[in-house]
């Protein structure tokens, strides 16, 4: 760039480009606006936690740790223990994850690794997304009237084969933990599949070529290079799904049986914290409300812990590429 000899001094040049006051004000205003919007989320979260904790104080003082370890839920004598619901929440969430993770990651691999023509791949991807769009109450209805009768023979078979195991004791009667687990699988599968698919798609093409370039098979490249490169995002998706599975209410309430009696068996009716809350908030008063709040607090802490673990795993596993 050539500077003409007649150009004004540098300072004057600079002041010509000074921003008007209104623009600066706008900038500042925008800064405060976003700050306010962002703080709102934080305040909301804090308020919810505090009010739930406040509501639960009475139950915490009365039952203490006994609330977590005992399984009597007796509104007549005002004795409350949420062990059935906590057990149900953890078992249904983790077992549904156990089924949905291989299924979801497998689907994601299948639709990203050009094993099939593009149109077919897009179709499967679309169907996964549509699966996520089904309202959970519809899934619950389907679970009661279609899925549960359909899988009953299989559950009966499990019982006849493994009757000696406490987890398969008792003949399946209809609603129970096992169908609830399966409906949770249906609900979290789209999350895991969609996130895994995006994670696999984001693995740089150079990395794939590099893997094939040293003579790996498709399987070897997938297991040793592509999946490890995508694992942190996939883990994030799994944890998101776990959070969803623990908090899912409607479909689970409709199919789990809402039993207040403890039973180790997956074939027996059970309960989860979420479905217990949904079932009891209407009739509850006095210390029962407080007990429900306590249960809600436990559910929040569980999902919080899952999220923290997820963040930790993602950080540990995340590989730069």
């Amino acid at each position: 760039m050539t500077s003409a000899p007649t150009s004004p001094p540098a300072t004057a040049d600079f002041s010509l480009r000074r921003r008007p006051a209104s623009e600066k004000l706008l900038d500042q205003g925008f800064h405060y606006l976003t700050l306010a919007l962002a703080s709102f989320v934080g305040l909301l979260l804090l308020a919810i936690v505090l009010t739930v904790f406040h509501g639960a104080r009475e139950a915490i003082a009365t039952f203490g740790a006994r609330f977590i370890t005992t399984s009597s839920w007796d509104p007549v004598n005002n004795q409350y223990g949420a062990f059935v619901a906590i057990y149900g929440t953890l078992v249904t969430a983790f077992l549904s994850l156990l089924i949905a993770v291989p299924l979801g990651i497998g689907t994601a691999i299948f639709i990203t690794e050009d094993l099939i023509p593009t149109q077919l791949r897009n179709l499967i991807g679309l169907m996964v997304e549509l699966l996520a769009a089904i309202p959970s109450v519809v899934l619950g209805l389907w679970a009661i009237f279609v899925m549960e009768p359909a899988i009953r023979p299989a559950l009966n078979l499990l019982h006849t084969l493994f009757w000696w195991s406490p987890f398969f004791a008792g003949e399946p009667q209809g609603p129970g933990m096992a169908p609830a687990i399966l409906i949770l699988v249906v609900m979290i599968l789209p999350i895991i599949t969609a996130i895994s698919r995006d994670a696999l798609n984001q693995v740089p093409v150079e990395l794939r070529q590099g893997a094939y370039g040293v003579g790996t098979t498709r399987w070897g490249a997938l297991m040793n290079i592509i999946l490890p490169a995508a694992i942190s995002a996939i883990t994030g998706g799994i944890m998101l799904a776990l959070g969803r599975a623990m908090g899912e209410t409607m479909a689970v309430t409709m199919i789990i049986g809402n039993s207040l009696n403890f039973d180790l068996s997956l074939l027996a009716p059970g309960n989860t914290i979420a479905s217990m809350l949904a079932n009891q908030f209407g009739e509850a008063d006095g210390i029962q409300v407080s007990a429900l709040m306590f249960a809600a607090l436990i559910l929040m802490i569980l999902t919080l812990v899952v999220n923290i673990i997820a963040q930790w795993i993602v950080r540990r596993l995340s590989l730069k590429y």
Partner: protein
Amino acid sequence: MTNTATNQTSTGSDVCMSLQNVTISYGKFEAVRNVFMDIPHGRVTAFIGPSGCGKSTVLRALNRMNDLVPGCSLKGRVLFDGNDLYDRRIDPVEVRRRIGMVFQKPNPFPKTIYENIAFGARINGFKGDMDELVERSLRKAAVWDECKDKLQESGFALSGGQQQRLCIARAIATEPEVILMDEPCSALDPISTLKIEETMHELKRSYTIVIVTHNMQQAVRVADMTAFFNAEAVEGGSGKVGYLVEFNDTERIFNAPSQQATQDYVSGRFG
């Protein structure tokens, strides 16, 4: 049109890879057509030419890397040690184990430096002393001094030029017979480029090297043989299709080319 040039080349040393009337298409569009070429054994062969002339496509055909591109097809024959690489009975994975590749962008695996080298060797069934192989490969790629103290660190802890030499070491570790390099220095600074070129001079004692480069000076510096590709518009007007103009000793290509197009390109009149 290029047959005369091609025939002269096979006199010097024995043929490693031979392309016989190779035409490569992406879907319906031909990317490069009717290539005849004999790549000599134990030498460095450079592919030069303007963008879109198909030189990278031809390079990637040499170890069936194009198989990974949907819709890519090849007509003609690519012979390696007398075997047609595109024969039905040939396993592409086996081809890539014998013909290694270094890519345009350094692409170390998201693993430690040590594992970057060991991974390829292990899947190729290497049973010997892995530590020794890692050191030997890194030494051959002239990156040992920079790496020896951080073998357990991520491959991304290295600079771009070092990463590229790590990728060369990775290719060497699988003990291929041929190493293909697709513009290996295009993302690197001049000093790293020089180091990689020195590495190539070392490597050609034990390997056949084929390199695609946009940098004509690099071709002059490293290559024994040079192939000049060009692209021409086809009848029907569906883009351009590449073809091999001339293939000869690097000296001849740059000083006394037999084709006018080559003369124009190497003297910088176009491209």
